[in-house]
């Protein structure tokens, strides 16, 4: 995993992006939302931001054991 494909900017170097955190469980309490993380070996649902590009927030599903990106979309849906 060395690049991500931003819906606005196309394929860009991974360095342009910043990982924020894994998605909290729906309906979880405040403590869980702030501190707890899902640590799934093969399926991680994450928030990222294209900080050194268009600054779009992204929702990415990845396999952290291989680095493969399974799905990448804009947070909140929609797109260019």
């Amino acid at each position, binding site marked *: 995993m*060395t690049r991500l494909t931003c819906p606005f900017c196309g394929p860009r*170097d*991974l*360095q342009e992006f*910043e*990982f*924020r*955190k*894994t998605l909290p*469980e729906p309906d979880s309490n405040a*403590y*869980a939302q*702030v*501190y*707890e*993380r*899902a*640590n*799934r*070996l093969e399926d*991680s649902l*994450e928030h*990222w931001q294209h900080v050194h590009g268009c600054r779009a927030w992204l929702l990415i599903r*990845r396999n*952290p*054991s*291989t*680095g493969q990106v399974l799905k990448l979309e804009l947070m909140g849906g929609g797109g260019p």
Partner: protein
Amino acid sequence: MKGPEPRYSAWALLRARLAGTGYWRPLWSGRRLREAYDVVVVGAGGHGLATAYHLARDHHIRRMAVLEKRLVGYGNVGRNTTIVRSNYLLPENHYFYEDSLRRWERLSHDLNYNVMYSPRGIVDLALSDGEMVGLARRGNAMRLAAIDAQLLDRRGVLKFAPELAASGPRRFDIVGGLLQRRGGTVRHDAVAWAYARAATALGVDIIEDCEVTGVRAEGGIATGVETRRGYVKADRIVFAVAGHTGAIGEMLGVHLPIETHLLQAMVTEPVKPLVSSVFVYVYPHGECYVTQSDRGGVLMGGFMDGFPSYTQEGQWFRLEDVVQSAVALLPQLASLRILRHWAGVQDMTMDGSFIIDRIRYDNVFVNGGWCYGGFKTIPASGAACATLVATGTAPDLIRAHGLARFATGHLLDERGGGPFPVRL
């Protein structure tokens, strides 16, 4: 197997020479997995082996197994940068790390195995006045706890480590540093081998190639572990699975306050003695540490890659970043070639401090969340974790390191960074 390895001594060397082949025996292999144990430790790395050793030595638990997915010492105990130190700011941390450093000082004798503790000193460098203030604060906190710390001005740093003066004018000159003379390095593989040998001598079964895939429980109490080699009954279970603690949490149905990140390290071709000490420089968006191994390779490491990964494959940009920082500190390194480069999978907790506590069940324990500091704590973690497992009560040194601290707000956040391991 004929029994434990003989004690190492000059006399043993001589006897081995006279006896010819067959005198030295395997250190830990050859044990069979039994059906039931008093304690099962999962993970034959530094922390798992040290915990098993202390359970056997201090608490006289004999029916004990250490189950390892791959081989002894195959994980982070063989992938770290071998640095030991206790220069932490918070009392809950520096007393614990100091306990560990004191144990390192005598570990070779305690285990009858040369782990090559080398107190070559560790210097945290400051390139600005603001950074000096931070180092002074940390050094004062340490000295209040009777831990050796010495604040050096520019001249003091260059006198202690003349190689830092070898270059011409710098863009950012060294302002000073915080020196801990007893800090240094330890031969990491030897630590795993020494604990494995010592635990085996006390009757612990070390079973390699035996991955744990689940925990069986009945009535709110864990009864044993499922492994690739079948079910093993256990009264108590300890997970010491550096880098996979978060995944163990998921296996037990618990989301832990842990993210799993990669840390990289790299070593150059061997050269004559060049780096006399351990140099650390932490800057706003990363960090860099440099030391020289006993074989002569200059060892470098830095900040994590920045997103969850179990691949053990580091990102190029981080490698570049670490090397650039190291060359900025020691321009002499610029002409050296990188010989090897690797990455380790780390548990990064939400406050940067470790977790030793019960998890999910009353008789299941977790020893993890070591962030950047796993290797240097092995002796103290083994002793403290063993006390918790054997007596059911956490000793004072790790009382603050339970999981509950995240919910109650008693975080141990050295850098004051908030609940994100990535942001500095």
